[in-house]
C-alpha cells in the first residue's frame, strides 16, 4: 500500500531508531519524526477537511495524539499505515462531531445512482477541470463522500480500512465511492455551466 508523500524518505532502520528515541522522551527525535511526516499529514488533512485552517489545526492535534498513542503502535506494521489511520480517524471524528445529524447519511448508502455516465462527456469533464477545480469541488462535497474519495484515491486505503474508518459495512464502500464520484461530477459540471448530462445519457 502506497502511503508515501513524505519529505526525504527515512529508511526502516532509521525510522525504528527514531521511534524508539521518541518513546524514550527524546524531543529531538520527536522533532525529526514530526518534520518527516507533518507535511504529508497536512496535505492529507487539507484534502479530507473543508478548509485550510481546519487542516492546520487538525495536523497539530493529530501529532499530539500520535505522541500520546505511540506506545500502542505495533512496530511489526508499517508506521505510515498506522499514522494515516490515526489521521483519518481524527479527521472523520472531527467531521462527525460537527455534524452529527449527517449520521443519517448512512441510510442513503444503499441507493445507487441510476444513470450511467456518457463516456465522452466524462472524458470532456476531465479535460476541462484541473486539480484546482477538483480540490475546490471536494470542499463542496458532503463530508462522508469527500472522505471516501480521499481515503481511496489519495491515501490508497483498502476497502476494509475505509469501512473501518467511516463506520460502514465493507459491502457499501463501493457504493459510497461511486456515489461520491457522481457527486463530484455534478459539482464540477454545475461549475462549468450546467453540464449536468455528464452523469446521464448512458444505459439505464
Amino acid at each position, binding site marked *: 500500500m502506497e502511503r508515501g508523500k513524505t519529505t526525504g524518505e527515512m529508511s526502516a532502520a532509521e525510522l525504528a531508531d527514531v521511534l524508539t528515541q521518541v518513546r524514550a522522551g527524546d524531543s529531538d527525535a520527536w522533532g525529526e519524526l*514530526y*518534520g518527516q511526516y507533518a507535511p504529508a499529514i497536512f496535505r492529507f488533512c487539507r484534502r479530507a477537511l473543508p*478548509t485550510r485552517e481546519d487542516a492546520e489545526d487538525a495536523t497539530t492535534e493529530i501529532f499530539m495524539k500520535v505522541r500520546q498513542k505511540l506506545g500502542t503502535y505495533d512496530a511489526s506494521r508499517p508506521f505510515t499505515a498506522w499514522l494515516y489511520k490515526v489521521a483519518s480517524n481524527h479527521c472523520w471524528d472531527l467531521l462527525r462531531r460537527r455534524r452529527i445529524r449527517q449520521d443519517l447519511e448512512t441510510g442513503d448508502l444503499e441507493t445507487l445512482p441510476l444513470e450511467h*455516465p456518457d463516456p465522452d462527456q*466524462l472524458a470532456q469533464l476531465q479535460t476541462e477541470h484541473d486539480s*484546482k477545480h477538483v480540490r475546490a469541488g471536494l470542499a463542496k462535497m458532503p463530508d462522508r463522500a469527500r472522505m471516501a474519495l480521499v481515503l481511496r484515491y489519495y491515501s490508497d486505503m483498502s476497502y476494509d480500512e475505509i469501512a473501518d474508518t467511516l463506520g460502514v459495512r465493507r459491502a457499501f464502500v463501493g457504493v459510497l465511492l461511486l456515489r461520491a464520484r457522481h457527486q463530484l461530477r455534478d459539482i464540477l459540471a454545475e461549475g462549468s455551466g450546467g453540464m449536468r448530462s455528464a452523469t446521464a445519457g448512458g*444505459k439505464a
Partner: protein
Amino acid sequence: MNHFDEMTALLYLEQQLDAAHTQEVRAHVGECRECRSLLRALELEGVWLRQSLEADDESVPAHLVQAPEADGTPWGWLSALGLSAGGAYTMWSGFIEPWRAQAAQSGFTQGNILTMLFFSGAFWKGWDAMRSLTEFLAVATLGVVVIWLLRRHLRRVTTLAVVMGAMLMALAFAPAGQAAEVKHGDPNYTLPAGETIHTDLFVFGDSSTIDGDVEGDVVSWSRSLTINGHVKGDVLAFSQTIRVNGPVGGNVRVFCQSLFLENEVSRNVMAWAGDLTLNEKSKIGGSLTVGSGDAELNGELTGDLIAGTGDLAINGILDRNSLIHAGKLVIGPKAEIKGQVKYEGRKQPEVSPSAKLGSPIAVTIEKRSSDRSYSSPHFYVHQILLWGASFVFGLAMLILMPGFFFDAAGACKRTMPAIGFGALFLIALPILAVIICATIVGIGVGIATLMFWVVAIYAAHVIVGTWLGDRLLGETIGVGPALGRMALGLLILRVIGIVPYLGVWFSSLVVCLGLGAIVLAIYRNMRPHLATAPAA
C-alpha cells in the same frame, strides 16, 4: 451476459469482484464495445482523481514545520492574559475602588494590602491615567480582535496591503466626513455661554463645562461634566461627576459616580451611578431607569420608574408605575405617587403619613443570601433544579447547534488559551458594549452585546460540563452519549460549586474556560468554509 452496470465496472477496476464475476466481466468486455468504453472512461476518471488529489499546489504553513511543544506558549493567550490584567486594573480603579472609597467614608474601613499596593502607591495616577488606560484598553481590545480574526489572512501581502491601505484612507478622509465637534486635549474645556454648536459635541477632558447651547448630542468622557446650557439632543456621558443644570431635549444616558439633575429632560433618563440626585426643579418627560448606590428623587417623573439601588428616597412626583429593588425605600412627606409601586427589598419601606399614594405598595421582602442552609433539604432541591435548568439549556444548544456545541466543548482541550481568552472577554466585552453604546453603533447593539455576554457566561458551564464528562467517560459520537456526559459534568461542576469559598473560585475558572472555548468555537465557525476557488 447483458451489459454490466457502473457499480460492477468500478468494482471490477478496483479488483473487488470475486474470481468468477471478474472472469465474466472480462469476457463481456472483450465482446462489447459499449461496456469497454464505459470501463475505459471510469479507469481514466480514477487516474484523473488520483493525479488531481496528489497535485501539490499548496505550501505547508511555516508554523507546522516545527514540532509543537505540548507546553508551548502561544502569543494569543499571553496577550489575552495581559489585556485581562489591564482590564481588571481599569475596572478596579475606575469603578470598584471609588465605590470602596465611598464605603470607607461611610465607616466600612477594611482596607486591604492589594488596594494599598496598587491604588495608594505608584500605580495609582488618578482619573487621567484611568481614562488613558480605558482608551488604550478599548483600542487594544478592538485591535487584538481584528488581528486575531485576520491573522491567517495577514500572511498574504495583498491582504495586508488592502488592510493598511484602508486604514490610511480612513485616516485621510475621516476629518472631511466628521459631522461633529471634537474637543480632546484641553484638560478644562468650556463652551462659553452664548455660543452654539450646531452639530454633535464630543468632549474628552478632565473637566468639561457646557455653558452654551448644543443642537446635537453631547458625548462626554470627562472627570467632571457640568451642563448649564441647552442641549437639544441626547447626553451620553462617562464621568465621575455629572451635573445637568440646563434643559436637555433628548435622553440622558450616563455612567458615573454622581449625577445631579436640576432641570428638565424631555425624554428618558438611564443612569448607572454611585449617587443619583434629582432636585425639586428637575422633571423627566419619559421614564427613569437607574442602577445606583443611593438615589434621591425629589423632582417630577412623567414616565415609569425602574430602579435597582441601595437606599432610595422618593420625595417628588411619580406619574406612572414604579418597579423598585432597593436595600431601603423611604417615601417622604412631599411624595406623590400616582401609579402602582412594586417594591422588593430586605427592609420594609418607610412611608411618611403625609405622602400621597395612588395605591398600596406591593412589598416583597427578600431573604438574605447568607440565609441559605446546607442542612436544609430545600437548598439541595434548589441545586437540583438549577442543575436541571443547565441540562435543559445544554440540550437546547445540542439540538439547535450541534456542530457549534461540540466545537466549543472540544475547544476546552486548549485549556490555557481558552482560559486566557475567556478572562479577556469576560472583562473586555462589557467594556466594549458600553463603548458601543456611546460611540459606535448605538445602545441596541450595546445591550445585545451585553445580553450575549450573559448568555455566554451561562452557556460556559454547559460547555465545560460536557468537556468534563468527555474527559471522564471518553469522547464519543451522537446525541445520547453526549447528553450523558453533559449531565455528569454539570453535576460535578454544581457539587464543587456549592463548596464554600472554593466554589466561587472554581466557578470563576469554569466561566473563563467555557467563555474562552465559546470564543474559540465562534472564531472557528466564522472562518470561510470553502477551499480556494478554482482558477478561471
